[in-house]
């Protein structure tokens, strides 16, 4: 059992490599933004260690800079993170983790770890924890680099690295759609809904855009099964 878990953990680490690379430039940017908002080195790093939520951390840095009350920052974080609640409902069904595993896995649920994990056929808590560690390491390393040195990644490299996560999303989606075209319908619908939301309800923001797209586009899956059913 332990050997099986070690192997799954290693597979998760490897599957998380694109997330590590993709988080680096984002986290460097966060480190720079946070420090220039007047947040100390320790607090900037601490946020990435303990909170581990990209969009919320950027938002918090902006709110701190504009002098918003801390309670509002916490509330805004809660609102922005609702999409991960939905993702965890699905992950719970797939993983069936125990109490301790839920606490650990829950700490590393992000948009990116969720999509990588949920598209993995042999998903186990150990796999997800390996994946989460890869993601968290990239986020943490980037934050420290950005907070300490500001411009440690040359600009041309940071620009091209900014496509990493999008390329990863596409590279995950393509084989999944080739295996089952129904998934492509849901993905295209999700993209259209997200685009329409950004165009017509910009106040929704990227976080809630994903919630609306997930709930609405996935409804198609009720009529068009995405997976083999037991």
């Amino acid at each position: 059992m332990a050997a099986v878990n070690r192997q799954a953990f290693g597979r998760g680490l490897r599957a998380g490599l694109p997330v590590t690379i993709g988080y680096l430039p984002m986290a460097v940017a966060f480190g720079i933004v946070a420090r220039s908002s007047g947040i100390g080195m320790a607090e900037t790093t601490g946020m990435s260690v303990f909170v581990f939520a990209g969009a919320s951390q950027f938002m918090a840095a902006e709110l701190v800079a504009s002098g918003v009350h801390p309670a509002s920052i916490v509330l805004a974080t809660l609102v922005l993170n609702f999409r991960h609640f939905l993702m965890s409902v699905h992950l719970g069904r797939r993983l069936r983790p125990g109490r301790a595993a839920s606490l650990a896995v829950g700490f590393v649920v992000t948009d990116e770890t969720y999509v990588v994990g949920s598209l993995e056929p042999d998903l186990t808590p150990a796999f997800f924890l390996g994946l989460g560690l890869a993601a968290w390491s990239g986020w943490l390393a980037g934050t420290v680099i950005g907070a300490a040195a500001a411009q440690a990644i040359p600009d041309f490299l940071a620009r091209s690295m900014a496509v990493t996560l999008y390329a990863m999303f596409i590279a995950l989606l393509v084989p999944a759609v080739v295996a089952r075209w129904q998934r492509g319908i849901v993905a295209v619908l999700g993209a259209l809904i997200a685009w329409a939301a950004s165009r017509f309800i910009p106040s929704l923001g990227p976080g809630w855009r994903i919630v609306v797209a997930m709930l609405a586009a996935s409804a198609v899956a009720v009529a068009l099964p995405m997976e083999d059913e037991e």
Partner: protein
Amino acid sequence: MNWITIAGMMLVTWVPRFVPLMLSRDVPLPRWIRRWLSGFPYAALGALIFPGILGAIPDAPLVALGAGLVALVIALKAKSPVIPVLAAIAAAALLDLVL
């Protein structure tokens, strides 16, 4: 930014991520809800890719779009996302020089 705020942010991030993991595992769900859930990752992928990719490099949407296209073509043949991702980064660097 003080540590109490960071602790608060941690709680409101972590709790909604782990509570459903604990609760949803053994709840019996009707088939239509299970099917609905099974669509989540693909809807999320679609929404994460578009329109976000257009703003990946804020002043050069075509560079990011071109890199995405490279990832798509290579992903048709690749076994894991690593090669398409590295190819897309290289393509973005090249396109950034040209465009």
